[in-house]
């Protein structure tokens, strides 16, 4: 090893030490995780197949803490990976070995509730459901409801532009966020939007929502609250085939009906969810639809009659309307726990493709074909109303090479979605999992232009790097950019 590279090594190993020293100056010791066992608890998220040990994890308690951390990251040119509750299925919160993990879980306070203006201001580490819980007694709720809403943070929802079962009617995260406060890569504090619907000027807020922690670290959010409906009840429809269920969904939407939610579960999912939630799902059907309507009782009943009329063409073999609030609650508990419940059967890789509804039954049978060709079992649980598919490919994580095979199988499914006129992610985001598949969706020029936007916010490329964009393309892009900017200064 030459003197120069030795020196380089020395400088490299000195950086983490200085970073940690600086961090300890701005944070309390219990806000910093350094020990091996503790760091391991942060090495992955809900995409458990991939683990990377970070060198430090910090748990800020305020926007100022985050700004101070960002300044240190900027000073030493050390990347930051923001993390909420670590529930990303796309690996959005998986660390990098040389990164500071900025975990927002301690920033879990509700700062202000403004019922007059139907908005709430919260710290970014507040869980999705905690917002609804805080205003429940007053008759309000926060609409987007990812299945992990019990534990996922609003910061993560903003990063991934999360959806959920009831987004069919209420829209996804971006339609329900009024403003954010964020810390930039250099440690500056910026605010976008406000507590009103449509801010003046360019809509930067919509750019932030869904940026996967690549443009800044969101520390506070102002969210839209909605009045709770008079009532809500789900209808269960069971079918003998996936295709019949799929066609039924397309017919309902095609005829212009807008239930709050249309959810699809197949046989393995029904069984696993029933074990957890005891919701009384029919166990002998191949596919089950949960269709929910809101409003006054008469309104719901009338809607159900219309849906049943449309559905009769597809020969449902099971029909049940939830009679009580408890029944409805159990039906939703089962659906929302579906991904975890599948854990009773097997490990899985969860896909997140979107397709036009008219292609639903065709795509569903193709997915089974693809999985069969890999000899993987597949379970489908998804938001059928907006064509957001979640095939869970079941595999044995302890068998060597299986994860690589399951990834390939997943890529084929997503390619199928793109070919059908859809896209590779509905609500989970790109993260680490689908970065290379972005080239299926976008041309190189598209991707380069997207990266230019990131560069404007994050010139040193330190915010959740290695995510979203194909790794090789991103490296080439950054090399080209730095040589051209060197050229400009020369």
């Amino acid at each position: 090893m030459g003197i120069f590279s030795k020196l380089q090594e020395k400088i490299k190993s000195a950086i983490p030490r200085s970073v940690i020293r600086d961090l300890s100056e701005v944070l309390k010791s219990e806000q910093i995780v350094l020990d091996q066992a503790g760091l391991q608890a942060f090495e992955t998220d809900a995409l458990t197949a991939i683990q990377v040990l970070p060198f430090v994890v910090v748990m800020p308690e305020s926007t100022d803490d985050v700004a101070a951390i960002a300044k240190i990251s900027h000073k030493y040119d050390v990347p930051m990976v923001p993390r909420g509750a670590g529930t990303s299925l796309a690996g959005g919160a998986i660390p990098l070995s040389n990164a500071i993990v900025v975990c927002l879980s301690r920033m879990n306070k509700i700062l202000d509730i403004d019922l007059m203006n139907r908005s709430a201001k919260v710290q970014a580490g507040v869980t999705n459901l905690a917002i609804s819980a805080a205003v429940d007694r007053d008759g309000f709720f926060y609409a987007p409801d990812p299945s992990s809403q019990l534990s996922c943070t609003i910061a993560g929802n903003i990063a991934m532009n999360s959806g959920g079962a009831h987004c069919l009617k209420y829209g996804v995260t971006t339609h329900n966020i009024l403003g954010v406060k964020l810390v930039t890569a250099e440690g500056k504090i910026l605010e976008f939007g406000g507590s009103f619907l449509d801010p003046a000027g360019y809509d930067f807020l919509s750019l932030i929502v869904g940026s996967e922690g690549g443009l800044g670290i969101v520390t506070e959010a102002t969210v839209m609250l909605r009045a709770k409906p008079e009532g809500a009840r789900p209808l269960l429809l069971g079918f003998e085939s996936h295709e019949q269920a799929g066609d039924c969904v397309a017919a309902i939407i095609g005829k212009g009906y807008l239930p709050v939610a249309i959810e699809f579960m197949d046989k393995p999912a029904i069984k696993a969810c029933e074990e957890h939630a005891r919701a009384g799902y029919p166990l002998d059907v191949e596919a089950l639809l949960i269709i929910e309507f809101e409003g006054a009782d008469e309104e719901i009943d009338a809607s159900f009659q219309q849906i049943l009329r449309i559905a009769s063409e597809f020969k449902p073999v099971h029909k049940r309307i939830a009679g009580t609030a408890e029944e409805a609650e159990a039906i939703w508990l089962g659906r929302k726990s579906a991904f975890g419940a599948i854990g009773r059967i097997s490990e899985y890789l969860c896909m997140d493709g979107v397709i036009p509804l008219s292609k639903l039954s065709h795509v569903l049978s193709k997915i089974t074909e693809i999985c069969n060709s890999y000899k993987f079992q597949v379970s489908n649980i998804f938001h059928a109303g907006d064509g957001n598919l979640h095939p869970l490919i079941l595999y044995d994580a302890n068998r060597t090479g299986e994860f690589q095979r399951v990834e390939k199988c997943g890529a084929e499914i997503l390619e199928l979605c793109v070919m059908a006129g859809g896209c590779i992610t509905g609500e989970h985001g790109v993260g680490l999992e689908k970065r290379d598949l972005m080239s299926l969706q976008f041309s190189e020029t598209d991707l380069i232009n997207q990266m230019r936007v990131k560069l404007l916010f994050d010139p040193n490329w330190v915010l959740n790097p290695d995510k979203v964009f194909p790794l090789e393309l991103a490296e080439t892009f950054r090399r080209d950019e730095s040589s051209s900017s060197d050229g400009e200064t020369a």
Partner: protein
Amino acid sequence: MKTEFTKRQLRNSDTQLANDILRRCVHCGLCTATCSSYVVLGDERDSPRGRIYMIKEMLETGAAPDQSLTTHMDRCLTCLSCMTTCPSGVDYMHLSDLARKEIETRGHRPLKQRFIRRLLSETLPYPKRLSLSLTLGSLARPFRSLIAKMGFKEIVAMLELLPKRAKRTAEFKGGGIARPRGPQLKRVLLMTGCAQKVIRPAINDASIRLMARQGIEVVISKDAGCCGAMDQHMGREKEAIDHAMRNFKAWQALEDDDPIDGIVMNASGCGTSVKDYDHLLSKQKGIAEEVKKFTDKVFDISEFLIDYDLRTTEQWTDLKIAVHMPCSMMHGQRLTHQPFELLQNAGFTVMALDEPHICCGSAGTYNILQPEIATSLGTRKAEHIKRVKPDIVATGNLGCLTQMSHHSDTPVVHFVELLDWAYGGPCPEGVEHLQHRVDRLKTAETGH
């Protein structure tokens, strides 16, 4: 979740069990939100998922448990809220038992911690020693600040939790049989616990009167004692097994006399442990079947009484009772509605608390060993109580009763005390000032 155990490691039955549990976890993180320590601390390492992950690493590498794992396991309340939440059915209870055993046998604890844990293990489960230490404790109370300065915050926490005045002595002492006055319909064994006998004997008295009045013969074995839960939660498996074996033998002796219809528990923390004896004693040779026969008929008293046609009460009252469900009932035994229904049927107005799934901070010896976190949780629970403004809080476990009495101004009693009162027994200790709000419609008999 993927695990990396060698075939040799998996030959160990504990490791095999851990592997089966870990494979079920998909690391989805739902458990974090309902974890009593995570809601207070906001740290992945203090969540079930974080702990499961750290336990996995420790078991896979075979390394001795380090300080970090010990700290974060110690902060777990074993409320088992995570198990109610977990859609994958991850058996956190048995995994955490294994981890605690590892920590106790292979980890290192500072001398002071070892001393305090030993002290608890050697006093709390033994009524005579506990009585003596209560007397010593009341003498030591004035010196709390001095003890705190010496660094024994656990001892101070213990002194704070002690009953401030002497309790009534038990009406029913030792072993024996309480026979119903009328026809005998059932015969049950009541486990009277250890600390409960000393700290609030009225709970056992009320349980006996309540059941005897309903035609249930109540047997108390003088040989049965502590259930072993406290030792088990401190990782002292051997001591826990000793306690369990002693109880098992006591039951055998009783069953030889005359068959029993049920083993009734009135401290839900103990109930959770006793219901799990078939697992705890699974390595004891030749008794598995018989243990299972017993554990199958262990019931919380609310669970036993709910299937029972309690007679109508002879009183009218407007008292509002907030029910605090102990975690051991809600999560450990998955009992959700029984105390609510029983109290309602007995004529009380019953209310639920917000965040019912979060622990009050008692958790066995937790409020002694982790006083700061226990205080945060106790205060949080007290705020929920304040919001619904009940006259009385009812619970089903002595630990919760002590913890909430310490943090809340509202009197806290065991629900059996209220039921006994409603069906003709005396007014529970601590709520005498509310007696005027109960109208007895006719004089009820006290049949024991």
